């Protein structure tokens, strides 16, 4: 194993730069070092002006997504040794506007998230129900939605999604997976409300089933499966609405 590896990092500062450019840094190559450790070495020892997001360094907060060698990755879970002998490129996540260096603007996703109503909706509950007892939910009922509840909002799937790249109106993989998460939850009764949102043109229909989202997802959420299920649900609802114009959904 060589004792260092070269990082090729995309730099961009809106106050001074017209466009992004590459900057190279050599960092120690150690078997337990992740790409994030490499970036922190740069920040602490070489160039404190490099900006990137990170927090938990254990793959759960969803902050540190970047394109590493052209693939969206959580940098805190991606090891430098996998890119030996280098160089390895580090860029901001594709498909998002770049704010600065490796930091992208997530406002679009943050605005879309509430649209799918990602909360428990029940006919009996307008706001507060002071709870004395749990809604029962068997382990099997929990398993039905569990996978879709594991999303950490890391945005890797948006960076990988060719549809989102072309049509930023597309609500996107993680948001749809979340809608499906609540739909499948035995405690929830909000399927119809969510369907109203997702049935719109930019909701689920844009997806062409490339499956890139599922491939890059670090939490094995399988957003592609959620989209597929939703399309089916939406198609059924459309047929029903056609056959039973009143209250078909």
């Amino acid at each position, binding site marked *: 194993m060589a004792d260092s590896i070269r990082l090729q990092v995309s730099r961009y*500062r*809106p*106050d*001074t730069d017209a466009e992004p450019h590459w900057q190279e840094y050599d960092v120690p190559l150690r078997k*337990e070092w992740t790409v994030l450790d490499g970036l922190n070495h740069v*920040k*602490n*020892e070489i*160039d*404190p*002006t490099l*900006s*990137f997001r*990170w*927090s*938990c*360094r*254990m*793959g*759960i*907060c*969803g*902050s540190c997504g970047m394109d590493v060698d052209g693939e969206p990755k959580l940098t805190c*879970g991606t090891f430098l040794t996998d890119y030996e002998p280098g160089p390895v490129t580090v860029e901001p996540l594709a498909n998002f506007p770049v*704010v*600065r260096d490796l*930091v992208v*603007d*997530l406002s679009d996703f*943050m605005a879309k*998230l509430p649209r799918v*109503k*990602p*909360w*428990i909706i029940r006919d009996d*509950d307008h*706001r*507060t129900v*002071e*709870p*004395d*007892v*749990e*809604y*029962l*939910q*068997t*382990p099997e009922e*929990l398993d039905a*939605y569990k996978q879709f*509840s*594991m*999303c*950490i*909002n890391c945005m890797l799937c948006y960076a990988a999604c060719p549809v989102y790249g072309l049509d930023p109106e597309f609500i996107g993989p993680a948001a749809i997976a*979340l809608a499906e998460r*609540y739909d499948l*939850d035995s*405690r*929830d009764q909000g399927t119809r409300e969510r369907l109203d949102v997702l049935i719109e043109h930019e909701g689920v229909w844009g997806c062409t089933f490339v499956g890139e989202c599922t491939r890059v997802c670090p939490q094995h959420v399988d957003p592609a499966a959620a989209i597929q299920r939703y399309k089916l649900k939406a198609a059924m609802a459309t047929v029903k609405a056609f056959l039973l114009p009143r209250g078909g959904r």
Partner: protein
Amino acid sequence: MSDSVIRAAHDVLIVGGGGAGLRAAIAIAETNPGLDVAVVSKVYPMRSHTVSAEGGAAGVIADDDSLDEHCYDTVSGSDWLGDQNAIEAFVREAPRELLQLEHWGCPWSRQPDGRIAVRAFGGMKKKRTWFAADKTGFHMLHALFQTSLRYAEVTRYDEEFVTRLLVDDGRVHGAVAIGLMSGRIQAITAKAVILCTGGCGKVFPFTTNANINTGDGMALAYRAGAPLEDMEFVQYHPTGLPFTGILITEAARAEGGWLLNKDGYRYLQDYDLGTPTPTPELRSMELGPRDRLSQAFVHEVEKGRAADSPYGPVVHLDLRHLGEALIDAKLPFVRELCLKYERIDPVHELVPVRPVVHYMMGGVSTDIDGATPLGGLYAAGETACVSINGANRLGSNSLPECLVFGARAGRAAAEYASAAGSTPSVVEAQATDEVRRLERDLLGKRPGGESIAAVREDMQATMEEAAGIFRTGPAMAKGADTLAELQERIGDVDLADTSRSFNTELLAALELANMLDISECILQAGMQREESRGAHQRTDFPARDDERFLTHLLVHRNPDGRSRIEHMPVTITRWVPGERVYGR
């Protein structure tokens, strides 16, 4: 509006969007929908460090359990330093808060009949820890965040960093914040402010805490004139992965994991923690409290019975006998973390672990409604000290603490804000001062040659040396001297980054200044407490001394910037101080 130094005015401003902050926001929106509430957070709320909590949240629900038993475990776990009125309120309200979260969609693990499942946890005599596999904090935080999206009346300022509280005449009136993306520095005024900024693990070099856990709220309150309480009590968790410090949750031991020294011996039996049994016994051996387990590790190292690793001495966590099916069902994240960061599969191999700084018992001193002595200033969650944790927190008490006291602080702040008058105009001048300080003194300064990373590393090394698992007066005094030098050096810190947009170097400088103040409070309180209690173990004062120290220490900031310590009595309602007994 955007050019004005005052950006917006709200009724209540919550600083922090983790478990405590979001719970407070929802409480306010529900109790008084007419109030205008805002949450400012330096990261998107769902990135807050609550996300990384693994093991679970305690609340009495099982048929064989009782509120009194949870109280007793918490009181004795705190080495009798916890305030018993706060503990009683906490224990009483925790189950309902956890049920509330259930109604908000948290995917709690279940029994076959659909009821909530509970697991054992360290220092707890009954099974009462609710869990969502071993990603409890993640599921709780996302359920809270997603539920909070329902309340359109909650304004959010995401990725904005609070640098100062605005205070006039003994009352707080808002805060100044830097918008990371825009670089804008402006004040957000409010009639009440709730600090929910989390812990300060980053004061130490080796910690389970995230990069954002820099104790900002403690420093903000301290500088604004609110005292900090129980700061000498820093929790070491006995099982962190070497090098990264990533936590292996106590649930691994609750499910039956063993701690072995290099000879494969369950060494805890040598430290008055009970005798080994094949299946876990509550309040015994591996399910003893964290302070005692971390101390036992140090003794094993001294006896030469720890194993070696490239990152210093370790012991081993043995999960092999639990089998793959149980590990995958109850501890999947533990397996994932071991595989990824240690390249070890706990189904077949021993996991190397060592104690790691994990949790801050101390924090901003509050009453049981989250109120600080400063008018309109509240605090909740890890940044606060109510104090239910006293000298040692029990695992799985702090997530419900965030809920119970987040909600309480929210309701109390709402009430205060409803009655409070308007914001005085002097606040604008204060805000202007702060903007000038940041722009001129930090961003516009000539390079002084010091690097942030170097000062930070020296601070962390100093704290590890002075305020570790075992402490002495002289070592703490020496550490305090070094901190004073570091305070000088930070004045010369060189900001290479003068950009306005997403300037993480500026943030690092501000966080470092916060951490230096907190470090000083930890050592000052530690020197004053000449006894050993819970997580504060002094080899020069090895016994607990209820005569002199059954008391909280409050650290105040004098106008000259130096600290001053006062005593505050512990509230005792029903449990008189006794011996802490485990495994017997």
